[in-house]
């Protein structure tokens, strides 16, 4: 985004997307220790695209590496996965992971406009040695299926022009055909083909010849087709074809050309005619291609179906969301205008209702635009677990649940790190060091981490559950006391002890490991999640494992709030934090030694915070029986807030307070934002957790 260069941005975006896709395929395949033919084709296609676009952007090192991997997969594609012996497969997977990391690293450098790594020789030799190994292996392939391309094609690995006449429909009006294939990996095949066509037009009228694919000029996607099947030109006269052959000879990157005459019902043998298999529709190769070659084979339906997706910059969506938010408010300002009070406006009311319905819909749609599935983030975790399993030599598997849960894009972007920390933590501290230990505990020798996401309508709950050792309360407490976080004289509850884990500078592992870092992890998790407006909680059973629950509001832009009045001020409290509301009499309030008020509800005691006193408001109810208590819970805080009255539940558009106001640290007092009410006035959004911290500090 920051580079300000559209083509470069596009390149980075595309390459990263492809790498993610690739990583998914490789991880999936590693489980089965084999690539399906589909995945091989897909990897081949991905590498091909990366090669092409990197070459276009003049990142030659990237293009070279991609090219070699493409070569490797070309061989695998031709000879199927059997060509890689079982012994070599781990090396193949490792190589792919390494190359994914390499590409990622390089793309990051591109993004940061740093110079690329020029030294790729050792990397290339790795790939080359693997290729050599594969080729050295006796091919354990069964006899090629009869429908496959002629023997001449599969004999050598290099050229890959497909059975020419299989992919192209002949046309008796243009009987003199010419098939061309381009050098492997020359790139921009569609453009090259189009240049040929232009050259031919110099001496041959448009009506005198046709070519296929017909849309090489406009559709760069035809490159795939040309790589697969070659490029075909048909002429009305043999002279023109001869001319075209001349052009083809003089232009670079043409690997081979082949003349062929249209065969009328009675076949006429020509010296260059393709083998007898010509009439058989191209089997294995064309059909197995990543691109749906079938579609391109039918004239008139030349465009391969494209995903109907566009990428839009997030800032535009933000803008849209902001405008829609305004519209929603303005709509209610208009329809609830005080000027309309007491008027009988039947038609107006009807239209207003219609308008409300539409604006609600508009709001919903604009919200869903920003929603993306968490699967990308989750997929990355698979990789982390894989790497750590290898490094720590602790077998574990990661189970993903609810990857399709959709959350706001900004959340997806910032949730990766917290989840990663927790997964690493589970791997490092949770899962037992040895399989024997697990077996002795009666567990599956292979550890399991479950990463799940679910959507409750207002928030998304992400859980990281491991079946490892669980948290040893005594060890944690001892450590917390050593670190000076806990006091030795106080008796702590299980929950409080767990919360020490989230305290800054706490790490139970005596050694700093490569993965879990320096005990900053959990702290970072907590802070990262809180920045998103969410909270983290831990639960654990000794010997059974640990569960980390991350709750994050689905979107930060809109939330359900309860509007409450205190004197002249109006506050909005997030509905998610509200457990209950109640009216109590003065007799039910218990006073402690410092005149603090406590209330008992559902068997537990909770402190009362009076909003009026906390915020030193000029007006407001003072008698407990005249106001309302709202039982709130946020993170580890649970308390009752005393307000004058409840005004009602409202979906509100969250607005940040001006930076000027925030510079007075109002956020520390639970003043978190504001929202416009339907009459245009402003309500202040309270943050339940920091409000309590402030109240306790007062």
């Amino acid at each position, binding site marked *: 985004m920051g580079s300000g260069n559209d083509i470069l941005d596009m390149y980075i975006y595309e390459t990263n997307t492809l790498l993610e896709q690739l990583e998914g395929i490789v991880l999936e395949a590693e489980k089965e220790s084999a690539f399906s033919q589909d995945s091989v084709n897909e990897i081949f296609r991905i590498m091909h695209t990366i090669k092409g676009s990197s070459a276009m952007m003049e990142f030659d090192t990237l293009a070279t590496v991609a090219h070699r991997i493409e070569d490797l997969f070309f061989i695998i594609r031709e000879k199927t996965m059997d060509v890689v012996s079982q012994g070599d497969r781990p090396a193949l997977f490792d190589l792919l992971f390494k190359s994914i990391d390499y590409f990622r690293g390089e793309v990051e450098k591109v993004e940061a406009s740093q110079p690329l790594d020029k030294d790729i020789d050792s990397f290339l030799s790795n790939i080359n040695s693997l290729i050599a190994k594969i080729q050295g292996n006796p091919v354990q392939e069964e006899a090629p299926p009869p429908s496959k391309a002629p023997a001449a094609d599969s004999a050598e690995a290099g050229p890959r022009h497909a059975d020419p006449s299989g992919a192209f429909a002949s046309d008796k009006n243009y009987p003199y055909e010419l098939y061309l294939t381009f050098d492997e990996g020359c790139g921009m095949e569609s453009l090259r083909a189009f240049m040929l066509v232009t050259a031919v037009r110099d001496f041959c009228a448009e009506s005198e010849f046709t070519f296929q694919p017909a849309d090489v000029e406009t559709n760069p996607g035809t490159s795939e087709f040309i790589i697969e099947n070659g490029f075909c030109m048909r002429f009305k006269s043999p002279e023109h074809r001869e001319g075209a052959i001349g052009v083809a000879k003089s232009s670079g990157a043409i690997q081979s050309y082949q003349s062929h005459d249209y065969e009328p019902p009675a076949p006429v043998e020509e010296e260059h005619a393709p083998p007898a298999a010509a009439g058989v529709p191209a089997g294995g190769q064309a059909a197995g291609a990543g691109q749906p070659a079938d579609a391109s084979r039918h004239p008139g339906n030349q465009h391969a179906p494209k995903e109907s997706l566009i990428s839009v910059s997030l800032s535009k969506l933000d803008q849209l969301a*902001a405008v829609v*938010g*305004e519209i929603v*408010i303005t709509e209610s300002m208009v329809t609830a205008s005080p000027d309309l009070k007491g008027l009988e406006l039947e038609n107006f009311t009807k239209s207003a209702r219609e308008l409300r319905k539409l604006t609600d819909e508009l709001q919903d749609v604009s919200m869903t635009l920003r929603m993306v599935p968490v699967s990308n983030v989750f997929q990355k975790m698979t990789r982390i677990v894989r790497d750590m399993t290898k490094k720590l030599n602790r077998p574990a598997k990661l189970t993903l649940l609810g990857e399709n849960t959709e959350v706001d894009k900004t959340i997806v972007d910032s949730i990766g790190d917290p989840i990663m920390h927790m997964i690493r933590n589970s791997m490092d501290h949770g899962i037992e060091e040895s399989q024997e230990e697990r077996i002795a505990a009666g567990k599956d020798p292979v550890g399991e981490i479950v990463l799940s996401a679910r959507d409750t309508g207002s928030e998304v709950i992400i859980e990281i559950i491991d079946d490892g050792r669980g948290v040893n309360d005594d060890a944690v407490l001892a450590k917390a006391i050593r670190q000076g976080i806990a006091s030795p004289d106080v008796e702590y509850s299980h929950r409080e002890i767990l919360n020490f884990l989230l305290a800054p500078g706490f790490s139970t592992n005596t050694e700093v490991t490569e993965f879990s870092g320096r005990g900053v992890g959990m702290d970072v998790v907590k802070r990262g999640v809180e920045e998103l407006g969410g909270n983290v909680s831990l639960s654990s059973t000794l010997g059974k494992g640990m569960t980390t629950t991350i709750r994050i509001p689905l979107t930060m832009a809109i939330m359900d709030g309860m509007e409450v009045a205190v004197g*002249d*001020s109006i506050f909005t409290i997030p509905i998610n934090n509200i457990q209950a509301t109640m009216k109590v009499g003065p007799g039910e309030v218990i006073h402690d030694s410092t005149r603090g008020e406590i209330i008992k509800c559902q068997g537990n005691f909770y402190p009362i915070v009076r909003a009026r006193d*906390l*915020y*030193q*408001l000029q007006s407001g109810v003072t008698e407990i029986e005249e106001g309302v208590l709202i039982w709130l819970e946020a993170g580890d805080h649970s308390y009752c807030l005393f307000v004058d009255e409840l005004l009602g539940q409202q979906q509100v558009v969250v*607005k*940040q*307070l*001006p*930076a*000027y*106001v925030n*510079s*007075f640290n*109002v956020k520390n*007092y639970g*003043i978190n934002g*504001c929202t*416009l009410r339907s009459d*245009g*006035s*402003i309500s*202040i959004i309270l943050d339940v957790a920091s409000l309590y911290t402030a109240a306790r500090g007062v």
Partner: protein
Amino acid sequence: MNEEILFAREDETERPSSLDDGVDSQKYLIFMAAHLKLGVVAEDVVEILNNQVITYLPMVPDYIRGIINMRGQMIPILDICARMGMPSRERDSLVVVLNLGEVQLGILVDGVDQMLDIPKANIHPLPANSTQVLVSGMCSLPEGAGTMMVLDCEQLIPNE
């Protein structure tokens, strides 16, 4: 919309003013706050609003009266009198919205006086031993209209 009004005023005020033309000068919006005439550079003024409902904001210094909603934007409102240590007025007054770099800020004033082109040379520094805050210079107004104090807007923004 407001800019038009401002320019219209400028046309009226520029001609009768006795100040020399062609001198390096700046336009100032002069407004009343308590007994003072304060000036701000007209370029910084976004808008002048009246009859605004100001939402009280707790836990901020007294001179911040609260925030207002200006077309969906939240603007903090400063009571300039209180900020400068003068008694603040209770009655509803005008809000002058200023755009100071990144920050938009509204200041509560008693009334707008005039718009005036003032040569830079006419603005004099405060007496060296003055304890006046938030003022970066002084200027005598033409036709005996009194003295304008140039409000130092930069100082309104708390530096982090």
